[in-house]
């Protein structure tokens, strides 16, 4: 009824152009699907929650240049000042900024001693305001008390007795029973014991490319040093307004230091994933360009084929084909070519994906993505052939009796 048989047999006798377009469709499908797959992987990475109240957080650097500077007193004054500013929810000194790319890592082990297995963890040194400032969720145990906070000199090598770790870190230390981590003693620097007094749901490390990015720990330390960073959390929607206010207040309160690098955590996230975003855009561009090239290829082949077959189309019209039947002929022809391309493309896409998975430790391609790619290619093919098919349908039946 739909002439599939004759169209197929006719294609077999004029196969070069059709095969070339089918190969182009196959290439587009395999690249498109795997590019989307890579984009999805990156998007999934970028969408991982940091655990922080990102929208309302910003931080700044405090660089002291004065000699004999009262670091401890100045730090306490600064934090008191910041916390007193209307609109500020809380503030803490912090040694590293999540997602910033720079931080501090250590290894925790369940047994003391050199040579014991350790699990890497990102270290955030904060005071008892750390949890509230960062906006992380404490799901087990308790926060640090003011009495837990210790001053850490720049040259110090010892560690406090208490720590709060992320759930991912608890899971890494106690696989399958992360809840049991609470109250356990773990060892840092091989032999220094630390008791896990709390577990927070999520807190990402500063390095987004690290496979242990969810593993982190809070340590009740305040740092004595010439370079400090303060993390500040504001009331919802007031961050941008408060960033210059806090900067100015700190700068005016003490002339022996420089306040700089006032940055929102959202900017840090954007910077952190800039290359991922750029690559996604490039991949998107590749998909669009490749799809357009394929579409134009289909249009070109169809137009060429129609120009070559004007007399034949006129004859079909003379023999009783309606305009709709002529259009249907070319759309079915395209459907067959696309089907061949899709068949090869699916095999190529799976092959390429197997290689990508083996090379970059990615998850395998989801069948739904492949199916979506197939549907998109069919749609592109049908849309691309629509214009040539309309041109073909417009060929007058009288063409059959003319010399063309």
């Amino acid at each position, binding site marked *: 009824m739909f002439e599939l048989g004759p169209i197929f047999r*006719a294609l077999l006798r004029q196969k070069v152009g059709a095969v070339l377009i089918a190969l182009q469709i196959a290439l587009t499908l395999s690249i498109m699907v795997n590019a989307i797959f890579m984009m999805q992987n990156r998007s999934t990475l970028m969408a991982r929650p940091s655990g922080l109240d990102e929208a309302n957080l910003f931080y700044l650097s405090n660089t002291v240049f004065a000699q004999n500077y009262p670091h401890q007193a100045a730090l306490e004054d600064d934090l008191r000042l910041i916390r007193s500013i209307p609109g500020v929810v809380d503030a803490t000194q912090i040694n590293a900024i999540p997602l910033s790319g720079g931080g501090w890592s250590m290894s925790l082990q369940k047994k003391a001693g050199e040579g014991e297995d350790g699990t890497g963890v990102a270290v955030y040194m904060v005071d008892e305001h750390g949890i509230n400032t960062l906006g992380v969720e404490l799901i087990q145990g308790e926060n640090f008390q003011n009495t837990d906070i210790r001053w850490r000199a720049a040259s110090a090598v010892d560690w406090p007795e208490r720590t709060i770790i992320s759930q991912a870190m608890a899971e890494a230390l106690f696989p399958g029973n992360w809840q049991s981590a609470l109250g356990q003693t773990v060892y840092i620097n091989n032999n220094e014991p630390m008791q896990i007094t709390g577990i927070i749901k999520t807190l990402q490390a500063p390095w987004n490319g690290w496979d242990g990015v969810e593993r982190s720990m809070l340590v009740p330390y305040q740092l004595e040093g010439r370079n400090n960073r303060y993390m500040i959390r504001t009331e919802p929607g007031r961050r941008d307004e408060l960033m210059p206010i806090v900067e100015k207040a700190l700068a005016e309160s003490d002339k022996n230091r420089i306040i700089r690098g006032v940055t929102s955590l959202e900017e840090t996230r954007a910077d952190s994933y800039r290359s991922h975003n750029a690559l996604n855009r490039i991949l998107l561009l590749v998909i669009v360009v490749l799809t357009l090239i394929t579409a134009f290829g289909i249009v070109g082949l169809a137009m060429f084929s129609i120009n070559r077959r004007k007399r034949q189309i006129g*004859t079909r019209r003379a023999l009783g084909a309606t305009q709709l039947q002529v259009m249907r002929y070319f759309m079915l022809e395209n459907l067959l070519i696309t089907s061949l391309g899709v068949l090869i493309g699916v095999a190529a896409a799976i092959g390429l994906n197997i290689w990508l998975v083996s090379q970059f430790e990615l998850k395998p391609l989801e069948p739904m993505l492949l199916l979506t790619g197939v549907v998109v290619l069919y749609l592109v093919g049908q849309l691309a052939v629509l214009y040539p098919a309309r041109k073909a349908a417009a060929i007058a039946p009288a063409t059959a009796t003319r010399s063309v």
Partner: protein
Amino acid sequence: MLKMKQLGKVFHTGEVSTHALREVDLHVKEGDFVSVTGPSGSGKTTFLNIAGLLEVASSGEFLLDGDNVNLLSDSQRSKMRNQKIGFIFQGFNLIPELNLFDNVDVPLRYRGFDAKERKRRIEQQLELVGLASRMKHLPSQLSGGQQQRVAIARALATSPRFLLADEPTGNLDSQMAQSVMALLEDINRQGTTIIMVTHDHGLAQRAKRQIFIKDGRVSELTAVEGLHSAGLERVTPLHTHGSADAARQLGV
């Protein structure tokens, strides 16, 4: 069956208008075999195109089985072509990528016959033209005469009441031409009405009626009993404007 009244066709190219057909009056009855002759550019093909619903007349009335075809939509004309008219073209117009079976199948598919009926008709028609054993061959594997016979099989496959032939022997040698003409006469004897455009006066004279076209005007030539073999003819004007031209053309 086919009635044309004051039919005209004008082609417009820029500001130039060309009258391809002028005030044509013609009545073709069921079972007629009409030959159409005339010099090149006289309007024969335009006449055939309009008679075959391939083109629409610019003026006048054209009734096919009582239906005014000028009032039909493109789709309705396509269906009428498929159901009532068979075409034989000078260049055969077979589809080169399709074998004989699929070529004859083309109009049958548009007709909507089921596969079994299509197969029966294809085999029957290819049998009729003596090519049943070659139905899997491509047109390029056949001689010109054989290709024209396939075209005839295709034209007859839908059982049309009306067969239009545009120079059906134009690309054939005389022996092949005679064979194709004999086939057409046989088809006509079985009741199919035929209009055949030809340059070959010998073949034209074998038709039951002869139409002459010049400068878009149509005249009918009627053979005089007993003089046919001598090639002498009397002009019966279908239209007064055309008669003188037609007579001059024939040297009468």
